[in-house]
């Protein structure tokens, strides 16, 4: 899966949890949870959705490495690559 495909997958799952998100307004280098107002339940559901879509395991100790959209895509690319 290319990084663009990964980014599309991440955005799709994010939009399912926060339908008001506009792709163009997301700053790829700002913390996702701050930008999109995700509480801990939303965040967990977001990660569960990524886990189920991409078959990737994300330990809780790695949560901090998924701060921004860019970081999330990089993390997933590394995990899958």
């Amino acid at each position, binding site marked *: 899966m290319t990084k663009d495909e990964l980014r599309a997958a991440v955005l799709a799952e994010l939009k399912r949890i*926060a*339908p*008001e998100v506009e792709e163009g307004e997301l700053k790829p280098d700002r913390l996702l949870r701050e930008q999109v*107002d995700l*509480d*801990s*339940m939303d965040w*967990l*559901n977001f*990660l*569960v959705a990524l*886990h*189920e879509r991409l078959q990737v*395991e*994300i*330990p*809780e*100790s790695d949560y901090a490495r998924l701060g921004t959209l860019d970081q999330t895509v990089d993390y997933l690319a590394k995990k899958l690559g």
Partner: protein
Amino acid sequence: MIEFRMPSLGADMEEGKLLEWKIKPGDAVKRGDVVAVVDTSKAAVEVEIWQDGVVQELITQPGETVPVGTVMAQLRGAEEKPVEGKPAVSPALRKPASPAARKRARELDVDIERVTGTGPHGAVTTEDVEKFARKAERKEEKKEEKKEEKKEAAPSPDKALEMRKAIAAAMGRSKREIPHYYVSQTIPMQRASQWLAEENARRPLPERLLMGALQLKAVALALADFPDFNGFWQDGAFRHADGVHIGVAISLRQGGLVAPAIHDVHELSLTELMKSLSDLVKRARAGSLRSSEMSDPTITVTNLGDQGVDEVFGIIYPPQVALVGFGRVAQRPWAENGMLGAIPTVVASLAADHRASDGHRGALFLAAIARLLQEPEKL
């Protein structure tokens, strides 16, 4: 005869709009079955029935708005006999129709008794049956189209306004009628945080727990010794509730909030509780809650820690008598045995109805919650 009435789905509800029946005359229903969908200002609520029976008559029509308490349907109790003397169709009253028309009706799955006849003496002809079937099909299509439209419609500004009004009514009543008192306590969360991290390291993603679930369970267990915070102030007296049904304040993305209940929280394992919580948040945000969840929370818990607040000063949801609030779990200075260190702590607060309890009891209740959170493995 059982009367199914428009339920009160919260202190702020005066009327409700029937969106849909999930039953039809002749259906047998069991206690707990969803029988109707009712639109309140907060959500489309699936309404359950609390008795077994057989549906006799649907009185309210979908689309009608009726006051709380209005009889919407009548049911026969499980032991009652059907009402005698009025069989649905007596052979003598059968509609005149040609044998060919009856055959065609069976083929097209048409109830011939509902077809208007244009033949001799009002007899139903084959043509009448076919016309009726075509009409029914068109109606069905229209219904489908309407349903599709409804699904796509975003929450209207009206809806947001209605929800604001409902919140205003309930909170206004609370502040007018309930003499609130507030107490709070800073709770060390080192053990709970560590236990949670270890537990989650073992669990696959979909089974992971949130601190909010531990807090809910601690409140539920503490209520066993503090029943005076679990129940309702009604008719000038406190009525203790039997179950521990915790209303969870859930903010909605489009604005506003709901606080539906998770039932019997004290009896759920953390895994079960987490599942219920996750399911409840999803359904609350999708706007599909059940009547029992809306109408019977016995206490409310609100957690604003994710938004970074230190402490919550809650407003009680009438007729409940208490609300427990949690702020953010964060590293804070903590002195113990003459030593100053930094550990994760949380401020728990209690807003309680002074008519039902006193600050002393409130302080003990918070202390019990704090104690329970020191032994997370027992929650």
